[in-house]
């Protein structure tokens, strides 16, 4: 309140008091009652104003409280969850990298060996074509070629199998991608909550937070997509192996 309005209100109260005294001194009961009523009305309206102010404060406090509880949920539950999920991403990418590197470790020396044998055989073959090879040596060469073709066949089959392993190892990209998307969503939620809190703190106005999607409610809608099962985080009833899935399906008459 400014000084002038305070003066005005003091002035008004004094004026009413004087009017009341004057009316009582003159024995004007009617006028005295009227002035008393007026004073009562003013007091009432001050009371209403005060109640209004308190209500607004309560509303603001409640808004802040819901913001706090969402933040609390995010920090207490979902952040540690996200940490676990990201750790799982590290594990999966590590596994995929190791699988691929193991294949390289196995295939490279094998290919090098086959390549060496090819070079040596082709040199001997050239000697044969130039008719520089005695018969006994040729018999030995043809035996070696037979052995080589055999080992070449086996080697190529192994390479094929190993390349398939590299192929399957790439599925980590899909699975980790799904997990990382979920964590990105969470980070966005934290960001929004923090922004709301900052706005609220700055303005101290009845700022109503937009309704957040409740993650538990999402889980309850059981056929919605939830992404890959992360061990130690997802406690929902998830089947861990293809065998379990097959068993469940066959129990359903599949």
């Amino acid at each position: 309140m400014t000084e002038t309005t305070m003066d005005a209100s003091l002035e008004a109260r004094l004026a009413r008091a004087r009017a009341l005294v004057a009316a009582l001194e003159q024995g004007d009961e009617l006028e005295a009652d009227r002035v008393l009523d007026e004073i009562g009305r003013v007091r009432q309206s001050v009371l209403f104003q005060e109640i209004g102010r308190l209500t607004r404060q309560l509303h603001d406090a409640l808004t802040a409280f819901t913001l706090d509880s969402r933040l609390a949920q995010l920090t207490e539950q979902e952040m540690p969850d996200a940490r676990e999920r990201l750790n799982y991403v590290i594990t999966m990418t590590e596994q995929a990298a190791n699988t691929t590197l193991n294949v390289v470790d196995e295939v490279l020396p094998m290919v090098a060996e086959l390549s060496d044998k090819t070079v040596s055989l082709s040199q001997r073959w050239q000697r044969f074509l130039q008719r520089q090879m005695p018969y006994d040596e040729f018999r030995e060469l043809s035996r070696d070629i037979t052995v080589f073709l055999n080992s070449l066949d086996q080697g190529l089959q192994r390479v094929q199998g190993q390349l398939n392993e590299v192929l399957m190892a790439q599925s980590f990209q899909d699975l980790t991608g799904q997990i990382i998307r979920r964590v990105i969503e969470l980070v966005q939620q934290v960001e929004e909550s923090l922004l709301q809190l900052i706005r609220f703190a700055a303005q101290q106005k009845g700022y109503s937070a937009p309704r957040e999607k409740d993650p538990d409610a999402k889980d309850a809608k059981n056929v919605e997509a939830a992404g890959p099962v992360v061990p130690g985080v997802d406690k929902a009833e998830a089947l861990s192996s293809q065998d379990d899935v097959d068993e469940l399906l066959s129990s359903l008459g599949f």
Partner: protein
Amino acid sequence: MKILVVDDFSTMRRIIKNLLRELGFTNVSEADDGQTALPKLQSGDFDLLITDWNMPGMTGIDLLRAVRADEKLANLPVLMVTAEARREQIIAAAQAGVNGYIIKPFTAGTLKEKLEKIFERLAA
């Protein structure tokens, strides 16, 4: 045999395509979610649909339901290949009329086995 592979991750589509080629299936098309898959199915006389579940736009389970609801596609065999492994989800897929369900990560052997099973049933 014409096959449509639906997954939002292109790496997974490539993996499945490679595995299918290894098994002798070379006529394979791709779509990245249900919304793009459905028109392809409706206009393209496919013999098999292999789909992921969790995709933006239209999910695999919704695609499966749309396929079963479409008079022309109702009998198309559908194999789900997905990371969704919860009991309720598998039951929901079974109820929606899925022909096979593989959870990721999977092996080449599992894909072969489930495909053979589907074709066996179709032949019977």
